[in-house]
């Protein structure tokens, strides 16, 4: 039997149901995978082995007494940006050193209620600002497929852990691609829900009008399962919407008959890696073979998306990160007056990318510049949203690459933030439009690095996106490949 830590949630639930293994067994194997590989991968910032084993034993105990939970003692990795009561939550930043969450994020609370347990904190770019995890204040995370490469970001720790068999599934957050891109780079499934689908309460905010929590998993069915548990109106988040949560798993089907899939002409332009383009085109053909009608569509304002994103997201971030001042929690350098304390604390404990974005965001909101940047940015954002609304008049979902390339080499983009920003060109538009997006493995480069297919859906149509992803996944083998670092599992 292959390692328990390598299985999907569905496979584990089946084994647990049949009494083949216990939750304690699962957690034990996940912990031993972490032990064996994380020194090389660097996905975890922090984990509590004893606590996780105790939680697993109590889940086993509850199950033996007849408790029925959807996720009976299933361990789920948590991106360091999400609050889990009693755990650290440093958001990959030194400025939150010493902070302990006094509460559960709503998404975490709902998973906990469903029986899940949380064994550790996964690395990320500081405050979710970055696409490589190299902006973490604490450590580098390596791509399990090739340790010389980045796992993507900002949910790089989450994707790397799932790919490396160090987590059964993980939560990430996506602001401009931070779930989809690392999922693509690490060969996982990553879902960014529609804005307003999953409560943001408890997700430390980067850009409030864009942030969404979503799952990173080994298969589409697991993503559907976790989304179904987390989704829905939350009285603690006013931006969640009262739209019924369908049974996402029931929406999954093996074919795509009757579906119309749009191919945006603006997404297949110069700059896109040849191997990536070939894989995507092959995937599109396969979707056609599965019964979908393929139509060309246009998203004409795509070229402005990255610029608009870096105006709006940084503007919001400049206010969101103002609370990290050393007064109430986290790290502090004393000062001779409050302003001195702020300046010293923030100068010392924020990293360079975070400072860069705070300064940018402060600038675009400044009096005299607001109209030229922020206000104009909002207008263009509306145009981008209309692009998608128009497109979804013509198709049920959109197929596109997740990223123009496979995972970068470590250090390749760090000196050139602008190049790194451009790497998010295919994920940012859907974020700005508030649409949902799924990343599904669709091939490998010659160098053995994964390639992801992005399926973008209309607002609150995660059911369609998951259906397309599932049908595609079921007719391919990409998601079954495992990275070389897992050779110690003995195959599956």
């Amino acid at each position, binding site marked *: 039997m292959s390692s328990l830590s390598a299985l999907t949630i569905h496979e584990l639930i089946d084994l647990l149901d049949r009494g083949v293994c216990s939750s304690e067994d699962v957690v034990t194997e996940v912990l031993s995978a972490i032990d064996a590989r994380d020194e090389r991968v660097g996905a975890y910032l922090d984990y509590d082995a004893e606590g996780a084993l105790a939680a697993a034993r109590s889940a086993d105990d509850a199950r033996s007494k007849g408790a029925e939970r959807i996720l009976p003692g299933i361990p789920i990795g948590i991106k360091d940006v999400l609050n889990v009561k009693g755990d650290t939550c440093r958001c990959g930043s030194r400025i939150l050193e010493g902070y302990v969450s006094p509460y559960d994020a709503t998404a975490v609370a709902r998973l906990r209620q469903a029986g899940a347990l949380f064994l550790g904190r996964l690395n990320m770019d500081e405050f979710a600002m970055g696409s490589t995890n190299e902006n973490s204040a604490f450590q580098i995370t390596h791509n399990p497929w090739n340790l010389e490469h980045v796992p993507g970001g900002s949910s790089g720790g989450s994707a790397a852990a799932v790919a490396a068999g160090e987590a059964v599934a993980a939560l990430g957050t996506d602001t401009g691609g931070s779930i989809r891109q690392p999922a693509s780079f690490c060969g996982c499934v990553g879902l960014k829900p529609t804005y307003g689908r999953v409560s943001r309460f408890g997700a430390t905010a980067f850009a409030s009008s864009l942030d969404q929590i979503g799952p990173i998993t080994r298969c589409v069915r697991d993503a559907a399962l976790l989304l179904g548990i987390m989704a829905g109106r939350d009285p603690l988040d006013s931006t969640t919407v009262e739209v019924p949560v369908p049974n996402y798993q029931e929406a999954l089907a093996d074919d795509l008959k009757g579906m119309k899939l749009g191919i945006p002409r603006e997404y297949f332009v110069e700059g896109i890696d040849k191997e990536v383009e070939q894989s995507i085109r092959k995937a599109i053909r396969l979707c056609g073979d599965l019964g979908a009608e393929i139509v060309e569509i246009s998203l004409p304002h795509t070229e402005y998306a990255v610029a608009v994103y870096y105006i709006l997201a940084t503007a919001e971030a400049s206010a969101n990160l*103002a609370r*990290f001042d050393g007064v109430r929690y986290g790290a502090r350098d004393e000062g001779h007056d409050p302003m001195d304390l702020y300046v010293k604390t923030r100068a010392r404990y924020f990293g360079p990318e975070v400072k860069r974005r705070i300064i940018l965001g402060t600038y675009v909101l400044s009096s005299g510049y607001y109209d030229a940047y922020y206000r104009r940015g909002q207008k263009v954002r509306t145009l981008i949203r209309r692009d998608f609304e128009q497109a979804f008049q013509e198709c049920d979902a959109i197929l596109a690459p997740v990223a123009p390339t496979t995972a970068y080499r470590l250090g390749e983009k760090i000196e050139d933030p602008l190049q790194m920003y451009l790497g998010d060109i295919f994920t940012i538009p859907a974020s700005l439009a508030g649409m949902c997006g799924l990343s599904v493995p669709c091939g490998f480069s010659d160098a053995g690095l994964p390639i992801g297919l992005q399926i973008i859906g209309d607002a609150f149509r995660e059911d369609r996106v998951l259906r397309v992803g599932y049908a595609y996944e079921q007719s391919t083998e990409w998601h079954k490949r495992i990275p070389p670092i897992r050779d110690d599992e003995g195959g599956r």
Partner: protein
Amino acid sequence: MTRGAGDLMDYRVTIGLETHVQLKTQTKIWCGCRNRFGQPPNTDVCPVCLGYPGTLPVLNRESVRLTVMAGLMLGCRINERSTFDRKSYFYPDMPKNYQISQYDEPLCLGGRLEIEVNGRKKSIGITRIHLEEDVGKSIHYEQSSGVDFNRAGTPLMEIVSEPEIESADEAFAYLTALKQVLLYGGISDCNLEEGNIRSDINCSVRPVEREELGTKIEIKNMNTFRGVHRSLVYEISRQINVLNDGGSISQETRRWNDETGVTEAMRTKEYAHDYRYFPEPDLMPVVLTREQIEGWRATIPELPGDRRARFVREYGLSEYDAGVLSADRNVADYYEEAARASGHFKAVSNWIMTDMLHAMSEGAIPIQEVKITPGALAGLIDLVDRQVINRPSAKRVFTILFEKGGNPADIVEQEGLSQVRDTESLETYIDEAITAHPQSVSDYRSGKKAALKFLVGQVMRLSKGKADPQMALEMLRERLDTG
């Protein structure tokens, strides 16, 4: 009119007030923490009002209703759609280092407040009313400082006046009238000691012949009406003196020093802010329906000014009495209930204006807590009217009712205060008085009419105060004139 040291008549004064009012809600504006005063520091707090990572605001609907009610009472237009914005600045009492406020789409726009200064009526324009959150309170100790966040997240309404206030007296009258309206509407407790109402003042002066406004000085965070008045008297005369001496005013923020009685310039850097307002992404726009607004409008109580006019019209009270009785909504309610029960409008007014308000202020008892019910007061007045008891006895009954409550007729009975009105008993007292004071009798008969009063007094004394003084007087006069 207040006069400063300079030649006030040669200058025109322009004042605008931004008044922050804490709303009377059960809970804070974004979280479930209690909205109350006087708890130990940092006990009414939670991750939301402390600005912990990942927390989000959820709007308290009652704070919206109260703000809209205030707007309706001040004659504002209510925006059916209004939005929140973030106002950024760093300060230790601000948990998020931005304040959630309303910038370009506030709940209420345009309105008026009637004021009266030295008998002259004037209407001051209200520019806007918006809803925002209060901040914490910095506490400075000898060696260190701390912040109490109990107040952080208290719903706060900012009422911005048009710059139509033209003297310190008008500013005082504006705040007094505003407080009256807010108390009437149950919008705020308006407790100045607890910081429920705090004002920022904008003030400028200019020579009368000049069209454009003078340079504006801001005085921040005034928490008493008297402080507003005193600081303006000082500031107006200061500015006039500067201009008289050929100097000029530079735009700045000043701080009122209540001990020395002067305004002092603050370091300009302290308030050189660029607030970088932008729409609050964590909150949806507040959307109100016409029906909702009209429903609230239907619950507006009669305003103090209207009630005063009606008291004059309906109950025949003097302007002054009507003003006193309508100043406090609870007193006015009490008056109306007693007046309706009694029918003797003037008598009820007299009792409240004199005995009642006096006893209340002596015991520092609000009218909601006095033991004498409006019905009992009406009953007491009725007993006097029917001459069951005389004035001095009525005062005794009132005192008992005020302290213990109860039914006036029962108290008259228990205390044996019924007036002696039967002629037989009165004749006995009169006989006794005449016999005991022959000198007074002859004084009266020789034309000293004052002697009659003395004899009535003797009858009252002999009857232990229970004789009907009017009857005693008439019977005495008849005896002396004829006998």
